[in-house]
């Protein structure tokens, strides 16, 4: 019993030392707290698939009242900006090639006639498909404008409705803002980035400065040293996660639908898995530079295969199954669902389970390597 007590005291000493190191050096503290916030802001503003500005060119071959009305409908959105009005369809190529426009809208010469005759009046839209995603998004906006134009026209003229009208509705993110998707995912992503680096570097630093040997000649056992390295990293991870959570709510104003316990429970298991990986890296790396590079190389696939920027659902089956091994995937799932759907602990049990398994594996593996490398 007293052996256990002594052991706890030793771990506490180590944790205290780590925390003093972080909190007394303002540079260190800054480097732990400022980058996550900056990254969160940059991601929140820049990492968006939504379009705010769609430059387009118009060729109105009809030049009739309804065609001008349609053009006005585009211009009135505030998103579509007409940068050119052209006469010659050949100009289309140059404008698209030079990247001046994203869309080219061409209203045919018989637009008014077709409308009057009740035939579909065709509007041709050419899209710059270099970024297929942007193109699809721009097109969806154009669709929406034409749809509301049609509705108005139909109502006004009393022409029969189409057989069916699609009425879209969106759950959890009514305005379909990428930011709503992105920022909650950052709670998991940025926290992993920092804890992995912190855990791997803190051991690599001790190795490089020779303080590790000094630790090893004290009665501290390898398991105690590991614990002493894990706990501060997890604590700091929690602080960073909370910081990003605050930025999401207070700065970006994204409503938090869930409750805190399922979020922090998920983060806790996730941080365990992340710290396990960090300690694993630290037992492989000899220098701080290597720890940094290895962590980075490890992080890239984790981030790419997490669903952060490209949806898991779009991946081929094989890779989709592979992502089950990715702790970040589960953590993002948890943060998004708790944040946006308001999911509770009950519905997230599969994710917690997967994370717990991953944490178990990384911690066991790293403690084995850690011990082996030590002695």
């Amino acid at each position: 019993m007293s052996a256990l007590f002594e052991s706890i005291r030793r771990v506490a000493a180590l944790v205290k030392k780590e925390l003093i190191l972080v909190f007394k050096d303002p540079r260190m503290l800054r480097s732990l707290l400022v980058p996550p916030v900056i990254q969160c802001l940059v991601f929140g503003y820049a990492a968006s698939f939504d379009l705010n500005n769609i430059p387009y060119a118009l060729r109105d071959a009809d030049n009739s009242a309804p065609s001008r009305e349609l053009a006005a409908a585009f211009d009135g959105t505030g998103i579509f900006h007409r940068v050119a009005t052209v006469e010659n369809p050949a100009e289309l190529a140059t404008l698209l090639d030079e990247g001046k426009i994203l869309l080219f809208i061409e209203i045919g010469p018989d637009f008014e006639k077709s409308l009057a005759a009740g035939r579909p009046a065709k509007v041709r839209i050419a899209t710059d498909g270099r970024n297929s995603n942007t193109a699809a998004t721009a097109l969806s906006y154009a669709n929406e404008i034409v749809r509301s134009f049609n509705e108005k026209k139909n109502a006004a003229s009393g022409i029969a409705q189409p057989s069916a009208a699609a009425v879209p509705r969106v759950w959890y993110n009514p305005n379909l803002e990428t930011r709503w998707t992105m920022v909650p995912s950052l709670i998991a992503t940025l926290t992993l980035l920092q804890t992995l680096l912190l855990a791997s570097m803190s051991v690599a630093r001790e190795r490089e400065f020779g303080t590790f040997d000094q630790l090893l000649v004290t009665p501290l056992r390898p398991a105690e040293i590991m614990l002493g390295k894990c706990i501060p990293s997890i604590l700091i991870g929690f602080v960073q996660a909370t910081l990003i959570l605050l930025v999401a709510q207070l700065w970006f104003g994204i409503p938090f639908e869930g409750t805190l316990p399922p979020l922090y429970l998920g983060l806790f298991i996730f941080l365990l898995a992340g710290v396990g990986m960090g300690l694993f890296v630290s037992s492989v790396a000899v220098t701080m530079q290597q720890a940094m590079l290895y962590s980075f190389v490890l992080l890239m696939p984790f981030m790419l295969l997490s669903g952060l920027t490209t949806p898991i659902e779009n991946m081929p089956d094989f890779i989709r199954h592979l992502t089950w091994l990715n702790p970040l995937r589960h953590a993002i799932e948890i943060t998004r669902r708790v944040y946006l759907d308001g999911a509770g602990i009950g519905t997230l049990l599969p994710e917690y389970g997967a994370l717990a398994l991953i944490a178990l594996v990384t911690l066991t593996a790293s403690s084995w390597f850690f011990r082996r490398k030590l002695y």
Partner: protein
Amino acid sequence: MEETRPVETAVLAKDLAKSFPLGKQGRVQALGGVSLAIARGTLTALVGPDGAGKTTFLRLVTGLLAPEDGTLEVLGLPMPAGAAEIQRRIGYMPQKFGLYEDLSVQENLDLYADLHGVTGEMRKARYEKLLHMTALAPFTGRLAGRLSGGMKQKLGLACTLVRSPELLVLDEPTVGVDPLSRRELWEIVTDLVRDEGLTVLVSTSYLDEAEKCGSVVILREGRIVASGAPETIRALATGSSFVMVPPSGKAARSLQSVLLDRADLCDAVPEGGLVRCVASSKEAAESLVGSGAKPVPPRLEDGFMSVLHADTVRAAPQGLRMEKPFDTAERGEVIAVRGLVRRFGDFTAVDHVDFSVRRGEVFGLLGPNGAGKTTTFRMLCGLLPASGGHLEVAGMNLRSARADARKKLGYVAQKFSLYGDLTVMENLTFFARAYGLNGARRQGRIDWALASFELSPWAGTAAGQLPGGFRQRLAMAAALLHEPEILFLDEPTSGADPLARREFWKRITALSEEGVTIVVTTHFMEEAEYCDHIVIQDAGKILARGTPAEVRALAHQEKGRAATMEDAFIAIVAEGRAGKGAR
């Protein structure tokens, strides 16, 4: 190219000054008005305590730093304007020579040969000579990072000497180098001065090296306190140098420790079983003679110590008192090593080593670079598992009772290895807690450490900001917090100046009187004289063991003249290697 006017002085400094920012406020004056002329074709040594400004002076000469005040001419060119030209014409070996560790010996040499434009026949001839001189020929394909410390230094020197520079600047070229390699390195340098008329400026903390130079400059706190030929410096101690015989049954170091406390003596150091001391005045000399001391001819170090007498007084530390001294009467075996083996792959670093250390002993582990000392040492502290053999420390098997055994030992690494960002107080508190000290006892031990090592004024300073000597004190204090039975010190005096070494050994003597067992490695052979027992290890095997006198005697029979510890060491290692070669 314009004819370079031959100048008689290689380096001419006038009121040279340089300071560096220290912390947020203030600056530290590294050099405060140094005036100096170094003639061409001479070998000049720059000596002085830590922080005297030796490295700063050398960096100014090489144009790596710009003078703040005063003037400096190197090879007739004013600095820093002529820096680019000077860097083309001189050779410089920094304290930590930056070998590219992931390049091989040959590749490092090639790089510097190409950079200096040494090509063709000239290059071939030069390589042959350098590889021969440095005995690196068999290792040209080896990565520089895999060389032992001494070989690295020799390679650094070889890289600096790929062509004959007009001026060769060496900054502590022999720190961490064993006596064997040290002797070889100096032979290379002195040969160059003799054969090629090279001008050499070298800084060193080994006074026996300075003794080989044409002139010696002693710096202290950024100023020159003495300069001249070695004889001139030596003469300062004429009639003041004596040796004393320690009372029978007492170690020479105990007598030395007593003598060091005397304010009227400049120095006391064990030498060949006796104690050499330097009197600061006529009266002191007379009183020494009165107590049976015999006058001896002075060495350079004696002169050096008399010049720096003021510092010796200040540096003399208090004795160390442990709360409960270990029973020195009970001289049991505290470390037992039998058939210890450590292999790394095919390579056997430690090959069936046996020795034992008794309680309260000062035990020295000596050997050339790469002999397996460090490996042995790390196994003793439990930092490295043994491949085979029996190892018992403080009555415990390190394998089965590691944590408990560790409570009984303290460890001071070669490199400063406490947390540089934590303050002195925080470091002490952390290690006290890591050793399981709590409450009043922790406070008591920390107070003891601050007082005994005179660290109180520094308690709030970050350990990384401490001056070199204080860092070492802190490292020792941290290792002694839990009152270990055994203290391990790995090359504790490497790179330290003579004053710091005296101070260090005085503490060790005090500790051993309290019954603490001390295990120490060192490259300073004269320091073996402080030990009760030593072993000399090479190529993983023990070549000699015994008291310093016994080991000296081994060489005595060989050479037939009074040998110093260094002579004995070199003879023993050479013999060991020859024997191995014959087999």
